[in-house]
């Protein structure tokens, strides 16, 4: 009986997921409508029609290298994201547990947050040339603060009572962390990761553009230089589509699995 009910539960959550996808489409339609309005006000050269952009995107996908470029940029964005997720989480958790580290790292954080990327990108280009690693480092520098702060908040606002319980039941510091704290931290960490993922794509494109490192950023720069705004928009659109795919395949399901209990706590009918 239990596996059945759990399968049913999962099914219903999948249904809700689809439904939320549907609502998401409505949101996209809203964006498209605004876009169309903008297009009609300013014309092709400022904001090409959504449909033209779609067609341009379709064409790009069909004649050749778009898929490769998309894969390249996605890989770079994901590599940078993975790096920043790992480093940001590790550093944030460390800082959360050790106030001294936190105090020491705060100005570093402020510098990372407040210094515009053009101040770093030269360094990255010297170290790594126009390569994947330049993009990864740029992503690292600009998105780590988000993850770091998420992890720090997760650690500092966790419920210590439950950890004390775990200690009484024989959990050492490591298992207290893995079995109890990690779960609580994830609540604050996931929104930060979603943000970081979104920024990763954006920053990857910007870094490719600034460092002349190919990928979608390069293609975007080329399209812009040719004043082919529809194509430029199409590239941006493709990148956003890749982001949405990654987000909904990678992060959301994991998160909704982890946050299942919140559904139970929500009053009747306010499921999401």
């Amino acid at each position: 009986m239990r596996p059945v009910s759990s399968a049913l539960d999962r099914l219903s959550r999948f249904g809700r997921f689809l439904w939320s996808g549907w609502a998401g489409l409505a949101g996209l339609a809203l964006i498209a409508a605004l876009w169309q309005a903008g297009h009609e006000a300013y014309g092709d050269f400022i904001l090409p029609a959504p449909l033209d952009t779609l067609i341009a995107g379709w064409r790009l996908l069909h004649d050749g290298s778009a898929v490769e470029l998309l894969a390249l940029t996605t890989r770079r964005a994901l590599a940078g994201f993975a790096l920043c997720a790992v480093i940001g989480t590790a550093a944030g958790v460390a800082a959360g547990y050790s106030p001294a580290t936190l105090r020491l790292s705060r100005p570093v954080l402020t510098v990372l947050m407040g210094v515009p990327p053009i101040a770093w990108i030269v360094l990255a280009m010297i170290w790594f040339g126009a390569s994947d690693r330049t993009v990864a480092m740029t992503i690292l520098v600009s998105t780590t603060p988000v993850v770091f702060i998420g992890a720090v908040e997760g650690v500092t606002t966790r419920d210590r009572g439950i950890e004390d319980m775990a200690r009484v039941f024989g959990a050492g510091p490591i298992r207290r962390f893995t079995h109890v704290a990690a779960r609580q931290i994830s609540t604050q960490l996931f929104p930060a990761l979603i943000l970081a993922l979104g920024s990763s794509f954006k920053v990857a494109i910007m870094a490719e553009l600034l460092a002349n490192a190919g990928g979608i950023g390069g293609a975007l720069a080329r399209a812009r230089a040719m004043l082919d705004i529809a194509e430029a928009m199409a590239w941006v659109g493709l990148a956003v589509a890749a982001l949405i795919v990654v987000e909904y395949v990678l992060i959301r399901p994991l998160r909704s699995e982890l946050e299942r209990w919140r559904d139970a706590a929500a009053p009747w009918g306010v499921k999401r």
Partner: protein
Amino acid sequence: MTVLELQRIGHSFFGRKVLDAISLSVGAGEIVALVGPSGSGKSTIAHIAAGVVDAREGRVVRRYHRHTMVFQDPRLMPWATARDNIGFPLRLAGVRRGGRDGAIRAAALRAGLLPEDLDKYPSELSGGMRQRTAIARALVTDPDFIYFDEPFTALDVALKRRMQDLVIKAAASAHFAALFITHDLSEAIRISHRILVLDANGRGIAGARILPGAPGSRDDAAVFALRQRFLTEDPLFARIHDIDERLRP
């Protein structure tokens, strides 16, 4: 043989002394009830004995193998179902998922939780069900020492009696010893070998009363009579009984 010994324990929070010179010991298979006014430091003693809080003075000697605790608030993990909350100590002990189920069911049944409640999250449980989950969690690993911090407050008459019987029986067969914190004198009288009364300000144990006969051998009338005698005649219990003396410093 004593399995737990606190030696001149003292503790303070932010410089405010809440415990001073607390010494007590619990023998094997013994149930020691700890009573005292609210806020006198009982929970703090249990936390120190169980190692949740490090005492700032004194020494704790533990000679048992494995302890668990029923906290004053249930302290369930909100993200886990009742089943997973009960199974948590097993998970810590390295029991595989499949192997846990039998023990969880058994512990839940002993604590009076129905199988249908096992798939609920804490937020879906009633107050008493949460407490039962916490009790089941403390029982699931068959510990040889249990700290009970007002464990049965949210249970109904029948469940409370059932849980008390469980404690009495387990202690009688030396399954476990226990430090049992309670405000319910009748409960203390019913299940314990010895009652310790904590000083109202945590300045030492004010005194102890060894109860006649074995726990479980006293029927309701006897418990009631003893309770009345303690409250009205025994000077040791006067401070618990007489609120106004405490409120006027």
